């Protein structure tokens, strides 16, 4: 029990430190590939520090949601970092890393962000919020079905056990069912974290905004929590994805060298995946909003195929 709590805390601290760095690396890679100098990999950290040290400005008609929403989003992302099997798969007592619980935790953050977008009472915020929730609603079937497909070989919906199964039996990873499910899951995660091709994270043009439109009215520490929360979510989900693709290095039994290996492995995997994502995004354009459902329907079909195939073929 103590090792499990220690690992959970370690994950928390690591990801709070790592997620701004990940964003910094991704932006820097993109900048270099586009021929710009870039602002350096520590810029997100500097941004957070700057935002916390500013007076937040809130609209007169806004309610307590503008203050509570960002903190809720941050809490939901922090819980993801605690519960997901990132550094190790040791189960916390009474709190299994249950897939359905984790998705709901994440959805709390999604809802908090959407309400923040509505609260300021501007057209931009409402627009972002509406689009964000539409995408979130359409992503959910894919997300649940994809992890359902992954859960079948392990016989449980507990993510840490799924990762352990894949570690013990690597043949599962390259089975067609697993590949289908991974593709579907990857698309769902791109949509959940507002990345290309669903949303453009570096845009400030109203027609293309989803995530950015909702945070326009936030400032000071409110904005800092919103940004940090979104970054943490991206880092945690990339961590999950990388542990599902390459489970090696994950800590299964507590030992000091194991912890160090686990920390190093997850850091390397996330940064690697982040760079790959960033390189991929350079070659992608954002899909038109009303084409997004088609993309998501495609990934849903993959996920459904994965689930039924794993029952009927296996």
């Amino acid at each position, binding site marked *: 029990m103590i090792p499990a709590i220690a690992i959970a805390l370690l994950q928390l601290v690591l990801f709070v430190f790592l997620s701004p760095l990940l964003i910094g690396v991704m932006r820097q890679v993109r900048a270099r590939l586009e021929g710009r100098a870039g602002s350096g990999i520590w810029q997100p950290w500097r941004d957070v520090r700057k935002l916390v040290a500013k007076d937040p400005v809130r*609209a007169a008609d806004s309610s*307590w949601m503008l203050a509570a929403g960002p903190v809720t989003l941050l809490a939901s992302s*922090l819980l993801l970092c605690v519960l997901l099997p990132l550094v190790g798969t040791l189960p916390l007592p009474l709190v299994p890393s249950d897939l359905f619980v984790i998705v709901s935790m994440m959805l709390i953050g999604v*809802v908090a962000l959407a309400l923040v977008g509505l609260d300021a*009472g501007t*057209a931009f915020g*409402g627009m972002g919020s509406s*689009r964000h929730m539409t995408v979130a609603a359409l992503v959910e079937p894919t997300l649940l079905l994809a992890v359902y497909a992954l859960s079948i070989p392990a*016989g449980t919906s507990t993510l840490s056990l799924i990762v352990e199964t894949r570690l013990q039996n690597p043949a599962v990873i390259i089975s067609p069912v697993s590949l289908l499910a991974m593709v579907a899951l990857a698309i769902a995660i791109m949509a959940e974290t507002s990345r290309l091709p669903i949303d453009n994270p570096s845009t400030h043009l109203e027609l293309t905004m989803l995530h950015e439109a909702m945070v326009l009215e936030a400032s000071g520490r409110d904005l800092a929590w919103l940004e940090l929360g979104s970054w943490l979510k991206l880092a945690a989900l990339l961590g999950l994805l990388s542990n599902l693709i390459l489970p090696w290095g994950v800590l299964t039994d507590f030992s000091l060298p194991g912890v160090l290996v686990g920390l190093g492995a997850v850091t390397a995997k996330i940064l690697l995946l982040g760079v790959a994502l960033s390189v991929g995004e350079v070659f992608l354009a954002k899909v038109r909003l009303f084409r997004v459902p088609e993309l998501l329907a495609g990934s849903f079909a993959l996920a459904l195929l994965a689930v039924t195939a794993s029952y009927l073929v296996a």
Partner: protein
Amino acid sequence: MTPVEAGMLGQVALLAAAVASALLVPSARWRSRVSGILCALLAAAGVVTGAIALSGGRGALTIPTTLPMDPLVLSPDRLGGLVMVVVSVVGVLASLFGIGSARVASASRTAWASMAVFLFGMQLVPAATDVVSFLLFWEIMTLGSTALLLAHHATRGTVASALVWYSAMSQLSFFFVLAGFAVLAGATGGTGFAALATLDPSSWQASLAFVLLLLGFGGKAELVPLHVWVPRVLPEAPGHVAAAMSGAMVNIGVYGALLVCVRLLPNGPAWWGVLIMALGAVSALYGILQASVASNLKVLLAYSTTENMGLVFLGLGASVLLRGDHATGAADAALLAALLLMVSHAAFKATLFLGAGAVARSTREMNLDRLGGLGSRMPWTAGAFGAAALGAAALPVTSGFVAEWMLLQALVHGSRVGGEVVSVTSSVAMPLAVAVIALTAGLALLTFVKAYGIAFLARPRSAQATAAREVPLIMRIPLIIGALLVIGLGLLPGPLTVALASAVGPAFTPDVRTIGLAGVDARGIDVVLDPTTFVALAALVLLPVLAAILISARRHPTRVSPLPWAGGGSRLRPRMQYTATSYAEPLVRVFDDVLRPTRDVEVTHVGESRYLVERVHVEQTVSDVIETRFYRPVLGLAQRFGVLARRAQNGSIHRYLSYSFVALLVVLIVVSL
């Protein structure tokens, strides 16, 4: 006399007192107070009786009759007790709310008398142990609710047509239930439920009765395609009546389905399960899709009831299917999930409708497009509505989340027992069901973000919303109790789940325990959930954040600016905000084929100019496809037939005499053959 018998007699006495007070008290204000309290007491008696029955107490009241059939006995078993508790708790909340909210028309003699009759009928349906008393109280319930809806008929023209729809659909479901029971009674030769339960579920009579009963009870539970009355009737009903109908009455429909699947015909064939699941899945998707694009708050809530009942039936169907496949653990869990969904739906939907009633009272407006900013004006209502909306969106830590979690776990664990695939049917049905639930949950999220965000956040979109004030204490109390129930059952689901598991025995024996503080440990499918640990964990990870906020807030206090940044625009008016209609616009586009919206854009130009626009009027209506494509043609056909029949009935005495003569001739000819 046992406590259960005393409780049921007490309900009869309180019914008499409530009806008498409603008829005798002359002043509307005092009538609301006295009858409201008596109705609340009547419902409280139901809570106590049901709780005793749920915990195993027995007792029987026999209604004396001279009819030659099984005796009419009221004796609630555990399951009946459970449903009685659920509907009565909603009854208490609705009655208390009614004391404050009932005004001129909804505080009339008829309204309060029929409220008491409605509650009484609803509370005693689950006590019936034979077909006749079941149908008797079923009709008392329907009668009470129909008369209740009449309240506003004098001031609103739409009430009459809503009432016709309601009566017709109620009688249709009554007809199905009656026919279903008649088939069962004909096959077994008895009218008591014990006698009906002797029928072999694999016989054709059982299947016929099952289909008829499913349609009948599905109609009461607002399932597609018998839901058409819901979006018409509930918006016309006063808040507390809508809460009682949508929070409590639908549970009687669920109870009927449970009666069939758990008590009368357990171990039905697998296709029954598939049929129930299909009905549930279609209802869930259709209901939430309509709810997500609705702009009227009450219509939104009404359609969301169809969705939730769809999920309940999905769980029930999965349980029947899995039981047929001998995946007992998952089947029991799915049944438990259906019951959890029913209980949590009662809690959050009653609260939501009461919240809508409070908003209606303060603003006289149900169109979300004209609301906004109510959060700061009605903080208690906003808080309660928000908690209940979280429940409806199935987010932690609410009862809705626990229920949906249990359902998903049951489905995921259902298709394999010990690593072996149980059947092809369930291998396809379970993933599809998971997908349906996931899409439903996603759309529910959007629906309730919209409902709460547009109504309670941002700036008021009309003068009425600006002038809104918090409702009086007597209306706030039931709202707060409802919200506490939603959160409480979500935080401490263990004892409730154990009680639910005891209610479905002996046919089903779910193995659930309490774990941790009051978490759920479903042994049958080997999953645990203890919501309190998540709250503790969240509090723990937030401690440093809160500390940072405190420090930061001391150095950098919040500044309030009269104008938000708003993309640099300075002439920002409240009308420029997103409305409920615009919020759902992307969804309307995505689901264009199902929703079939009609949009009317009217542009008025300034003078002769082609470029300067004076006014743009946009109107969008989303029709109910099932109504326009299915009911309208049938009704049209019936009407044409009616017109034809009128030719034969033109009021001429000569013609009627000649009809009699011809009829007599025909009879004579037939007899002589």
